[in-house]
């Protein structure tokens, strides 16, 4: 049995809305370049875990085409049909088991250019009730959640626009982000196309082509890769029901439970004080206050003040998505894993313009399903 698992390497692509190369080459180049950075080869990896999805790949058992690219030919390999942070959770457990010392996790998609994102989302909806009825989808579910939050806590459209601009500015300073709107103003967001109000086009994350690879290792093997391991000290993973009408879209008890479990494992009693930054997988800007509050990072209903006082900004008391988050790039399947890479970069003091000063502990979040039906939470430390 291994007792502690660390992130020992990570790399993401420069995400785009139309990749100049095919996915196979994209992930090959990413993995080779990560191996080169660390001075390793595929022989140094014990198990490989893909985060991908047959619908986003447009083929079944889709890893048969990608195995040669990441170096897992004739090696222990598997795939998770969920976000990359779920794959990282598998990798973490495999290493804890003691059967493996090292793992490569990779998530990717061509969500910017090769398929219609809402179509792949539709195939994850309940096929015998929601799909034939056609009114509940990822967008309308998140709109209902946003609407509930905004009404209950007097969070205005302008507050939401400010939050969006905060993330767009962070994304603008993130070299990997696809969406670059340096001049976007609160007015621009308020005037963007209405979809399912209160959700407008500007609030929607940037579905992009891209990939992220992360290497995890046992404590014993970590030295071979880096002298700056980032420890995974807590994990939580909970799913809610798929019936929207059964769920408390505001309280998000499943996310709250996942966060509490991760905090408990990591010995965190007061997340507001003990956590230095959060990287959240938000598909819509409106999800940020809902998720952050469910995770105990802010007081419930404080979103308005948080925005006003800049508390979630890079220099704030609790920076949320200093990377810009998925507003800057949402290559489905990689998005939550990118949060882990971004947080690791911050803790290793390797972040560029978006550096959060003195960050030692971070919380990382990923979601799947409409309105974040499934949530994964990691606590990571340097």
């Amino acid at each position, binding site marked *: 049995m291994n007792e502690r698992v660390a992130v020992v390497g990570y790399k993401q692509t420069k995400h785009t809305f*139309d990749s*100049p190369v095919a996915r196979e080459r994209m992930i090959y180049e990413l993995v080779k370049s990560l191996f080169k950075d660390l001075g390793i080869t595929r022989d140094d990896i014990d198990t490989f875990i893909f985060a991908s999805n047959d619908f986003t790949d*447009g083929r079944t058992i889709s890893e048969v085409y990608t195995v040669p690219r990441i170096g897992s030919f004739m090696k222990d390999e598997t795939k998770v049909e969920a976000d990359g942070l779920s794959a990282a959770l598998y990798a973490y457990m495999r290493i804890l088991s003691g059967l493996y010392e090292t793992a490569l996790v990779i998530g990717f998609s061509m969500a910017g250019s090769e*398929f*219609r*994102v*809402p*179509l*792949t989302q*539709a195939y994850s909806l309940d*096929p*015998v*009730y929601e799909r*034939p*009825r*056609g*009114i*509940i*989808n990822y*967008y*309308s579910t998140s*709109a*209902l959640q*946003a*609407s*509930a939050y905004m*009404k209950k806590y007097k969070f205005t459209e302008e507050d939401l626009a400010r939050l969006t601009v905060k993330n767009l500015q962070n994304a603008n300073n993130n070299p990997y982000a696809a969406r670059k709107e340096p001049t976007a103003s609160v007015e621009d967001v308020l005037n963007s*196309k*209405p*979809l*399912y*109000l*209160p*959700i407008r086009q500007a609030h929607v994350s940037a579905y992009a082509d891209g990939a992220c690879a992360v290497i995890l290792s046992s404590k014993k093997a970590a030295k071979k890769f880096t002298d700056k391991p980032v420890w995974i000290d807590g994990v939580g993973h909970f799913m809610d*029901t798929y*019936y*929207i*009408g*059964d769920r408390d*879209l505001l309280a998000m008890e499943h996310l709250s439970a996942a966060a509490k479990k991760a905090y408990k494992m990591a010995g965190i009693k007061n997340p507001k004080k003990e956590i230095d930054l959060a990287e959240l997988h938000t598909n819509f800007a409106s999800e940020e206050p809902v998720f952050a509050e469910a995770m105990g990072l802010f007081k419930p209903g404080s979103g308005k003040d948080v925005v006003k006082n800049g508390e979630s900004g890079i220099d704030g008391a609790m920076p949320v998505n200093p990377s810009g988050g998925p507003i800057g790039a949402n290559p489905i399947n990689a998005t939550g894993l990118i949060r882990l890479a971004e947080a690791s970069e911050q803790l290793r003091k390797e972040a560029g313009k978006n550096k959060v000063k003195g960050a030692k502990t971070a919380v990382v979040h990923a979601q799947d399903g409409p309105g974040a039906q499934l949530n994964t939470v990691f606590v990571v430390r340097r």
Partner: protein
Amino acid sequence: MPGHIVRATVPITFAYKNRVGHALEQYINGLKEKKILGVKCPACKKVYVPPRTVCSKCHKPIDQMVEVGQEGVLKNFTTAHVNIVNGEITGVQQPYIIGLIKLPGASSLISGIIKTPSVHDVKTGMKVKAVWKETTQGDYNDLAYFEPA
């Protein structure tokens, strides 16, 4: 050749004939008779609409069908300016309301379209009632929409 991306277009069209299962079958049959049915969990007494066969919380089978009321309270809504059909997001001529409604006797909320003369007339907390198709035929569209009660 740099700058030139060759693409293979690969359409995927498949239709399934999924069985809706015992619970939804009864729900749909109920719609034909202009009734809204739910199921009551024998353990936690929650009434789920639409019905299902297992209570997630109690992990117990549920088979006690109960009829719920048709005039309820609008708990939450969004104003849709688009439709998503076959993965395409397209604008609609007339914005419409998608709401979550609490019906009397139900523990869960039911989603539906709310029709009012203007979308601006819609408020959370308002009373709404089910409107049926004149001739029902045993499908989800029998319960056409909800309107102010």
